[in-house]
């Protein structure tokens, strides 16, 4: 039982972690605000569903599309300037961005949890001794398929190849006629999509409240354990974290899974600084 719910959460962490990796691969920036992009996506979904009263699919498309746009907007406004700057600037700016996003969300929707809305139908399925909600099953499926689609995009399409090229070096690909700016926007936009979907799915389970941004926090270890340059690693890392969180919390209690995830992260980094699937550093003498 624990394993199942862990896996389901894990898929969502994996999706959000994928967003991290996309941004990191393309622009060498770790987006600490990913958790808040998640929050924004979730709240926008709630907004379209409850306030605007749109049907499910329309609400999903609207909020995901908005997530894409928010990603691009953030990239344009802040990250463009940061391309040459030292690491500290980039990290701290995304951290402050998370403050701004949290503030924006509070300003528009307040700090109290919103009325609960389920994303999919409220029904359950029995499989032997296990009781699963359709909600979580569909969430799992959706998260994995979106993650899979993004990975396939990365590997098999021309645009995906261009994104990988940009990750290797901005100046190098400029000489090949690739617009680095457009690729960066695209990666942030895709990260925004990943975050929004993750947020929406979690919102259905956990409720639409500010605490959703905590998921972004947990997706960070997932991305690192898998290796920041590997989209597949991110998903696997997500599953790993989801599973361990669920198991540890189940046995030790008190949401011990969260710090445990970070303990695992620190341990992994000590032995495998680039994560399990991170690209080796190729150095020529």
């Amino acid at each position, binding site marked *: 039982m624990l394993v199942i719910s862990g896996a389901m959460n894990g898929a969502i962490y994996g999706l959000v972690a994928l967003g991290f990796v996309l941004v990191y691969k393309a622009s060498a920036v770790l987006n600490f605000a990913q958790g808040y992009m998640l929050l924004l996506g979730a709240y926008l979904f709630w907004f379209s569903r409850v306030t605007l009263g749109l049907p499910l699919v329309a609400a999903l498309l609207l909020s995901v599309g908005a997530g894409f746009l928010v990603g691009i907007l953030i990239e344009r406004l802040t990250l463009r300037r940061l391309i040459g700057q030292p*690491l500290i600037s980039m990290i701290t700016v995304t951290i402050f961005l998370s403050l701004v996003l949290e503030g924006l969300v509070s*300003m528009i929707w307040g700090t109290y949890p919103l009325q609960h809305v389920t994303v999919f139908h409220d029904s359950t399925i029995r499989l032997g001794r296990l009781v699963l909600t359709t909600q979580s099953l569909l969430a799992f499926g959706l998260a994995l398929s979106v993650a899979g689609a993004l990975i396939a995009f990365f590997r098999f399409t021309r645009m995906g190849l261009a994104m990988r090229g940009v990750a290797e070096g901005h100046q190098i690909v400029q000489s090949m006629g690739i617009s680095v700016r457009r690729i960066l926007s695209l990666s942030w936009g895709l990260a925004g999509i990943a975050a929004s979907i993750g947020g929406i799915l979690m919102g259905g389970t956990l409720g639409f409240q500010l605490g959703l941004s905590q998921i972004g926090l947990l997706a960070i270890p997932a991305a690192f354990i898998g290796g920041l340059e590997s989209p597949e690693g991110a998903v696997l890392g997500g599953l790993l974290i989801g599973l361990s969180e669920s198991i540890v919390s189940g046995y030790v209690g008190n949401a011990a899974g969260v710090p445990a995830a970070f303990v695992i992260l620190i341990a992994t980094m000590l032995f495998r600084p680039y994560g399990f699937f991170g690209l080796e550093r190729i150095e020529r003498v």
Partner: protein
Amino acid sequence: MARVPFYPPSGVYADSYAKDMRILKTGTQRFLTVAGLVLLFALPLIPGLNGSYYLRLIIGAGITVIACLGLNILTGYCGQLNVGQSAFVMVGAFASGMLTAFHGWSFWASVVPGGLAAAAVGVLFGIPSVRLKGLYLALTTLGAQIILTWVALYGITVTAAGFSVSPVRLGPVVFNTPQKFYYLAMGFTVVMTFVARNLMRSRLGRAFIAIRDNDRAAEGMGIDIFKYKLLAFAICTFYAGVAGALLVHYMMWAQLESFTLQDSVWYLAMIIVGGLGSIEGTVFGVLFITVLKELVLVVGPMAQGKLSFLPMGAASGLLLVIIGSIAIFFGVLEPRGMAHRWSLIKAFYRLWPFGY
């Protein structure tokens, strides 16, 4: 992060190394410092500023300055990003608080152990710096924030619930009002600031800066980077611990809610806006953001009263948006913070009309 060089006004020169390394180089600077200190300590005697509101504000700022000084030493001077400073403040707070509340120690006896406890934990989380750099190390500190908070919440019963702490005594005086605690807080702040400034102009400070700028080159020069990084962590978290001890003895209550991830982020914002790698910058940054915070907290509810369609909590949201945006603004356009701007202004003034 090059500093703007010091352009001495005419007549000011150094004829010995000691003189060259002075913190206060010109007569004006010395005068202003003394005057500033006098003003600082005389503040409660000025009518109108005697009220608790202002004093509380300044005390809070003072304690934050101590925590941020530590952070600036580790992140600004030594270049190791620390996203979990408030957790270390918490360690010092609880350690010192528990010694005072449950074992009857006096504040004066528990301050240093509080700081040392925080330093010990800080060094523990600094150990990964032997293998990890930059971004990865920052994650370790994030992990510190999360893990330590969890331990305090679920691992130790007293800290979860919060406990009361008896106020500071010095002889017959009990520092249990803002008016009285003010002097204590300002005393600590001033001392810690000068100590930090002194440390950073010494060999130690230069070693930190070398590590920040290029740690391999520093190692090549003979600086044992692991030892110095750990030392930086220790100093940073010691300062955090002292700040924590002061905090709980000021509030006379020790509780978890004072130490969140968001606080860590605030500290970072303060040193970035003020200026990484600058002691004066730390003070600037803390003051600036504290004042801004107050402004928004005062203006916010008024605005909310008028614009009643905004939901609950909008004021705090606005605060975050404003401060976050300012921090981003500084981070993007002037990463060296207000202190750098200030030194540019001073240099311009001194060099005019030879600007370039």
